[in-house]
């Protein structure tokens, strides 16, 4: 059995209590949500928090709620809840696509959207999904709430805008008419982290041209959206040649590392191939041609 280094443990009773505990114990305190990123690192002694602040009693952070043109998702919402939500599937199929391939059922039963985003692992699927959907993150600290976009939220691998004494409490997704989205990942085995993955969201204008396009990739060294590829499609009617060009440009834009999952060349190829696939699927879905 792998055993973490010694640590102390406290169970937060409210969001404010969690913030107070984090403030009291300082930078060496870590929030634990699903624990599926934090605990493995603690067992390998790569993470050695002095304090672990458990937020699993904060059930008021576990919700999916429609509010006007926004879908509000509490930070403690489990992967499984997202996977099984019919509302999420109909509004943002990219989330359901991604949740199917996030880890395995055991991890999905516990892991949370808040933990996924705060972990900010470059291979985290929901980070790409939220980036593509232009999500907003609500962060709570001693001074109250602040709301920021994903570009600002992600500061780089394993780094976010959430300070040591703050909590991510909510993720907000904007609902747009005539739009849809898709995600696809290549993994070596179910439950494995992505070799590479891509996500896309599209919104049509009334005239059948693409009003907006968002493309994001996972595990290939690019945190933000692929602006160059998006530009090829925006304002145009979708065409195979434009999709192919968007894929090619994405393959060029990424900056992957070679590792056991594959070579740089292969990952660039996947970025290209998967981008084309998710664009096609998102477009077909938005046109009502595919579920």
């Amino acid at each position, binding site marked *: *059995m*792998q*055993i973490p*280094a*010694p640590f102390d443990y406290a169970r937060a009773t409210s969001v404010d209590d969690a913030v107070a505990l984090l403030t009291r114990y300082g930078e060496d305190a870590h929030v634990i949500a699903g624990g599926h990123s934090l605990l*493995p690192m603690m067992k*390998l*002694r790569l993470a050695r928090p002095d304090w672990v602040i458990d937020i699993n009693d904060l059930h008021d952070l576990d919700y999916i709620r429609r509010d006007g043109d926004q879908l509000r998702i509490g930070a403690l919402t489990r992967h*499984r809840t997202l*996977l*099984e939500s019919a509302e999420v599937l109909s509004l943002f199929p990219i989330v359901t696509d991604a949740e*199917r*391939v996030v880890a*395995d*059922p*055991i991890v*999905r*039963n516990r892991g949370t959207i808040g933990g996924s985003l705060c972990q900010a692992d470059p291979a985290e699927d929901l980070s790409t999904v939220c980036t593509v959907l232009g999500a907003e993150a609500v962060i709570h600290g001693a001074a109250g709430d602040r709301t920021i976009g994903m570009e600002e939220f992600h500061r780089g691998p394993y780094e976010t805008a959430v300070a040591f004494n703050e909590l991510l409490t909510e993720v907000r997704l904007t609902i747009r008419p005539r739009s849809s989205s898709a995600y696809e990942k*290549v993994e*070596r*085995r*179910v*439950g*494995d*982290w992505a*070799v590479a993955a891509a996500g896309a969201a599209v919104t049509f204008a009334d005239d059948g041209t693409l009003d907006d396009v968002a493309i994001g990739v996972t595990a290939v060294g690019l945190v933000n959206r692929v602006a160059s590829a998006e530009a090829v499609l925006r304002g145009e009617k979708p065409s195979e040649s434009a999709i192919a060009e968007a894929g090619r440009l994405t393959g060029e834009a990424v900056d992957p590392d070679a590792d*056991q*999952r*594959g*070579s740089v060349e*292969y990952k660039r*190829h*996947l970025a290209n*191939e*998967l981008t084309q*696939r998710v664009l096609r699927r998102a477009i077909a879905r938005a046109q009502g041609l595919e579920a």
Partner: protein
Amino acid sequence: MTIVDDPQTRPGGDYEHGRDHEHNPSADAPERPIGFGRLQRKEDPRFVRGQGNYTDDVVLPGMLHGAILRSPVAHARIVSIDTSEALARPGVRAVLTGKDLEPLKLAWIPTLSYDVQAVLATDKVRFQGQEVAFVIADDRYAARDALELIRVDYDILPPVIDVRHALDAGAPIIRDDLEGRTNNHIADWDCGDSVATDAAFAKADVVLKQEIVYPRVHPAPMETCGSVADFNRVSGELTLYVTSQAPHAHRTVIAMVSGIPEHKIRVISPDIGGGFGNKVGIYPGYVLSIVGSIVTGHPVKWMEDRSENLMSTSFARDYIMTGEIAATKDGKLLGIRASVLADHGAFNGVAQPTKFPAGFFNLFPGSYTWEAVYGKVTSVYTNKAPGGVAYACSFRVTEAVYLVERMIDRLAIELNMDPAELRLKNFIKPEQFPYDNKAGFEYDSGQYEKTMRHAMDLIGYDELRKEQAEKRSRGELMGIGISFFTEGVGAGPRKHMDILGLGMADGAELRIHPTGKAVVRISVQSQGQAHETTFAQIVAEEIGIPPEDIEVVHGDTDQTPFGLGTYGSRSTPVSGAAVAMVTRKVRDKARLIAAAMLETRPEDLEWEKGRWFVKGDPSAGKTIQEIALAAHGTMELPEGVDGNLDAEVTYDPPNLTYPYGAYFCVTDIDRGTGKVTVRRFLAVDDCGTRINPMVIEGQVHGGLTDGVGMALMELIEFDSDGNNLGGSFMDYLIPTAMEVPDWETGFTVTPSPHHPIGAKGIGESATVGSPPAIVNSVIDALRPLGVTAMDMPCTPARVWDAMQGHATPPI
């Protein structure tokens, strides 16, 4: 908690369970067979109810906990070790280093291959993860925390990681502990006839050469290795609870190593959570728990974690093979050569019979007739964990089968011939058995063509080829892969086979109690093979007592006769034979007693399952239960017959048994990503007499899953510094239910002529047979792209590389 299973991502998932083509439930024999037949496993209730008892469940009064400090580097001289801070930590009882073991002569112990291995490093560390110090503490947390307080000063040395350069002049010398070592060479071995093979090649129309790599993989049993040692300072007795596939062999070796007399040692191997060869060797941790108990006077538990298991215990394979094949242009096989570079790691700790330093690689000619064959293996040291024979390989038969089956397909491509047809043309024929395979082994029996044709019918081979042609015309990648394997299992005849001088025979004892219930004691140890069920069925078949009335005792050296344990599929071929023989001995004795009871002569009695009766008068008879009571009763027994119904035997097998099978695999490959999906897999096995078809199917399903793992994802890789890149299940991937299709099985029955019940081993057939079928299928799928070869594992990235025309070896 329910588990979300998404059927959309599950390949081929229409069926709930595997499908055995032969199994017709309504035609089944009795629901509770007295003898052979489908019978639920007797051991299952305790496992499914969480009532198993594994080594880590053992808790003894006053028990302390040990943890091992391991080397972070692959090759370094140890300058100093400072344990003072660790010793000062509250809860720590002792810290041992190699220096403490030297006076006890326990710093080094023999391996199973006449080499030595370090228990705790004294001079150098030779692989990442090697044992350096042992902390004993009040609980496992204190023991782990104290490891961080030990200061080791290492003087880093250049490591030997690339096995292809291990024998280079000027390569660092790993084993400078051995007298006079000037290189990293371990042994050269060969078999067959090189001159005759040269002649066969000289007259061939077609000659092909192909490098085929079977990379380093790990058995990764669900339960890691561990032990609880309890040394009684007053009586001098040692009780060792240990994850052991071979408790008797372990007791003998521990006696030889430790100096504790063998009669004072009791080895108990409780329930085992999978072995696959990983639990055959003696690990430093076992020895350290014993020393720890002697030193502290308390029982000491040592249980390794997952990373320790993956990084330091017996790996498998690691063979770089070069195959050469010679044939006529119409597909008649003439000759085959195999030349192997084998990476044995830092210590030669391979577990195999003494006279077989390359295991049973002699099986590389496979299931075919050749004019001549020649194989040679060179083994070397590298700065990697030791091991080599593990993971259900039947002593390197896995590598041998993989080589020949890949080569046959390679030849089929070259000749533009159907690979099934090429095999059918060259099979050994039934009338050629017993068959000398020209590499030193004599196959006992087989009907290869019959089994092959049966498998082709079951899978619908011709239809599949049609489907493939259609898909190819649409640019889709579909592959059909075949493997036809012959194993040699059940080591083995004492005159040829031993481990550390211990002949590979097995004992069995049977007692029939007065009420007709029985206990059979066996020397082999189940790690999931269902001995408690199948061995009871052997007794039942032979003597007619229902299996539920027969207790099978195993795993405790104080309770069972001597024998060499369970690995290499040897339990049924050797110990199963012993059980059949001991039961026959009891049956013969019962005949004498029955004759006395019926006041007739033994030769006038006839046996039917469960009773002796008078020839010509079936109503006059005695059941085995009546005879048992009489044997223990007051009746006057015949001269020379003592008052019980017990017997014991030791069985020395005359030969190995040679199970075989025809496996077919259908894959689909995503052209854009290189991702392989195993759509169908059919295993038609012939393991001779079938004791319990359900258990056979279970063994086959498990082995096929192993095969998917090796073919598609498993690999222990190292970086150039010797860091193990497969040290956790995040990096060392093993398959899940999602990567495997709904298994299809079938069978033919060709009994072994020399085995008392005609059974052959089945435990490893699927692990041996499936990887070549899967890889051949992947290559077949990639044929339209000009691919003729690629090595495992067929991960998306490696398949894509092959599609681009640059397939690379994994090592």
